[in-house]
């Protein structure tokens, strides 16, 4: 019966890069726990030998010919960028060694 600890919720929030307020974290902790409980029913199903279904209607890979097409003009490509330096996208530094 998975009940999530506060530490686990913190870890998941970090993995998902979500800043959550303490009330949000606590609410999620209980909500997720309830939802995860519900999924116990799946564990009880016998799925021996059943291949996981990847696509509803069986399909195989379709490949693309190696023909380059014109790219987006830089200004169109970067139109939505909040911070630019010329044609480069700018983000705050990763503190060296402190990989995000």
């Amino acid at each position, binding site marked *: 019966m998975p009940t999530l600890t506060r530490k686990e919720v913190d870890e998941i929030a970090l993995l998902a890069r979500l800043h959550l307020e303490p009330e949000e974290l606590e609410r999620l902790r209980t909500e997720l726990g309830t939802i995860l409980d519900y999924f116990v029913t799946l564990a009880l199903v016998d799925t021996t030998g059943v291949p996981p*279904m990847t696509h509803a209607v069986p399909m195989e890979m379709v490949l693309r010919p190696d023909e380059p097409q014109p790219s987006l003009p830089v200004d169109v490509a970067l139109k939505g960028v909040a911070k630019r330096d010329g044609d480069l996208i700018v983000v705050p*530094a990763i503190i060296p060694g402190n990989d995000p």
Partner: protein
Amino acid sequence: MSEFWTVAETARRVAAGEITAYRLVENVLTRIRNVDRELGAFLELDLDGARNAASEIERRRTSGEPLGSLAGVPIALKDNLVTKGVATTAGSKILKGWIPPYDATVVEKLRAAGAILVGKTNLDEFGMGSSTERSSYRKTRNPWDASRVPGGSSGGSAAAVAAGLCAASLGTDTGGSIRQPAAFTGVVGLKPTYGRVSRWGVVAFASSLDQVGPITRTIADAALVLQAIAGHDPRDATSLNAPVPSYSEGLDRGVAGMTIGLPSEYFNHTIDADVRAAIERTMAALKDKGAKLVEVSLPHAELALPAYYIIAPAEASSNLARYDGVRYGKRAEAQDLLDLYRKTRGAGFGPEVKRRIMLGTYTLRSGYYDAYYKKAQQVRALIKRDFDEAFATVDVILTPTTPTAAFRFGAKVDPLDMYLADVFTLSCNLAGLPGLSVPCGLTAEGLPVGAQLLGRPLDEATLLRVGAVIEATVGLGERRPGGIT
């Protein structure tokens, strides 16, 4: 009045010059202006685009050039369909202000058919919800009763069609998001077979479940719109390379000699009495028209909910990883990169989206993947098998679309409660089958009830055919919503 013209009628009149496309567009925009403040269906209108499209149609018509199958037909697009030059938000603050540089394939196809794309409709954020209450922008009301939800996540699309603000709309359906709002608002909603319609330009929620489909006032209209958007797209590797039949042909063939399956697991569920009654009248009508109704079993039906709520959030958590404010969308002020990611996403996503991202992240972690996602994909295969076996003996399956009619705003506070409301629509997405909701009556309170038809892969034509009989016998006829006019 032109508000409630069907797609077919609109196209005919425009082509015949009985009404100019300009006039039509102005009528639509006037109606939207009058009604939408209360209804809340639209997030964005494309006035310039609509008027330019109208110009082009008139130019072609007067110079004798051929018109597309949907020329002059005003169509609304759910705001998770990417539209070039027109704001696209997917109902989320994180995409506030984003103007896409490209069109979704379905948008390109509608444009090519001459449709007038009026604007973008409201939805639960990123398609995650069953009431449109989860939109970060505005509230959409049910035109039959303003105190009730229109359903979701394609609530805006359904409400707009039901209230006569456009002739048709496109929605998307991942767990019932076309069919359920169609049922709640008394219109037709079709989710095609997975892969039948291109997902290029559809803001992804759950990649293995999402499909685009038409929401219309009549079955014949649904056939026309599906015809325009279906087909293989080389830009979508999950798009099916299968021929597109004529969906309008044979719509009136009736149901004589057909066998319709009634899954006992669905009917044993708690269903609102009025909903059950409407479905029973539907069954009687079909029987009367020559169909045979038999009970079938879908033994793994109860597993659809847990399987869906593992697969969909897992895929969603992955698909939403790209929303970080770095290349587009709203970026939060931050000291360092980690802060940037956490604050942007923390502020930009609503609580339901965050809930699902957390759930999905949890289940995909190494060590958990086998027990959750992989297990759910195996269960999914079992659910599909159930349908395959059922379809060996029946042509279509009939169920209520939802266990109740439209509920009131704020009625489903517990997320699990909201998830349980999807119980009838989820299996269809898991199995990749086509599903149709068609109005089949009203409750005592005057709220629409939807009958759901599920079919074999690529058998949309049969669904439409059966739907046509339901529409003709127990449909709503000329009844219009009276909640918001």
